[in-house]
């Protein structure tokens, strides 16, 4: 069974969004499993079908993939956030992403079967699922609009403002590949901003 301490962060996170009663919360707690990753360990790799959503209790995970043969960082995710490959998770198709622990990471794992059974049994969890995927949509839509309408300089400035910690914690060449620029170009951008 879970150490209740493991659920402290996720309970705070969830209760900002929906208000499950005791029975609904117990049903949720029942599907959660704690997991620990060592630095550099993979949570997901290319070719696997992603059947979970994870919640990060502590640490940082890097999402990357090989695009035109080149390793490209897609995102960084840190504590109190959910991480998964939503495309593979929703469609149940093989992923092209790698999820790698950049530090030691403490996670909670929610399996797709368990999530679907919560959706079927409780309106509040179906609602929570909607609100989460709406947030995820807003995140990717904001990034897409940014790519359409802004320069790399503007994208770096916004990234650094939104994730000051990650800029400190993460090697520069990962940030360069996240922005789709060469490391040399990024260091020029950094000097300018």
């Amino acid at each position, binding site marked *: 069974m879970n150490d209740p301490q493991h659920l402290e962060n996720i309970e705070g996170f969830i209760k900002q969004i929906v208000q499950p009663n005791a029975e609904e919360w117990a049903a949720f707690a029942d599907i959660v499993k704690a997991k620990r990753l060592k630095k550099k360990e993979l949570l997901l790799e290319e070719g696997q079908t992603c059947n979970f959503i994870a919640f990060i209790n502590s640490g940082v995970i890097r999402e990357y993939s090989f*695009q*035109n043969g080149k390793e490209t960082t897609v995102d960084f995710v840190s504590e109190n956030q959910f991480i998964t490959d*939503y*495309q593979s998770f*929703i*469609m149940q198709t093989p992923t092209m992403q790698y999820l790698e622990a950049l530090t030691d990471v403490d996670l909670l794992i929610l399996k797709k079967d368990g999530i679907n059974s919560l*959706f079927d049994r409780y*309106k509040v969890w*179906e*609602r929570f*699922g*909607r609100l989460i*995927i*709406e947030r*995820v*949509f*807003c995140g*990717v*839509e*904001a*990034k*897409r*609009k940014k*790519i*359409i*309408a802004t320069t790399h300089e503007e994208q770096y400035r916004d990234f650094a403002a939104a994730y000051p910690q990650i800029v400190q914690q993460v090697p520069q060449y990962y940030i360069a590949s996240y922005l*789709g620029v060469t490391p040399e170009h990024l260091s020029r951008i950094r000097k300018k901003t």
Partner: protein
Amino acid sequence: MYEVITRSLRQLVDFTDEELFLFMQKLKPLKLKKHELYLKEGQVCKKMVLVHKGGLRYFSRGAKGDHTIGFAFEGEWLGDYESFLLQTPSGCIIEALEDCELYTLSYLDMQALYQHSQRFERFGRIMAEQLFLATAKSKSNLMLQTAKERYIALLTSQPQIFERLPQHLIASYLGIQPQSLSRIRADVAKIRLT
């Protein structure tokens, strides 16, 4: 139209007749003249729109001209869904490309439907999942594909767009200058002939 909409809703969720009736009651008709704006920069997108007749363009204005984000034609939904969900001001514009007959669904009505039953919650989740998948794909195409690859993908997936839209809007959607689009078209036409 009633039939078309209710059928597409039932494909997603097993709604009761009563729920479908309730949904259809919430749709309000709206007509726009060509070039009229459905959404202006700085406004909150309070309603999502379903195109019955005509077409809409979704874009933002930059220092060097418009950035076209997308289009919607008959049977398709459009809105700044981000602004709609968060009820925050939109940075984008939605304009009628032709005279349009539309139906709208307001944020407040959508919330009332979510309260009404679990099936509407599920409908909202599936809609958001589908929009997420489409947006994520479009984002990675923008990052990874060349303009020529995007042109070929558009030609394959939405050939009707080329009959409905002027060249400069297609160029703006592909993120290139109209001159580059002519060059790409000529290149691709050559490949298709040989």
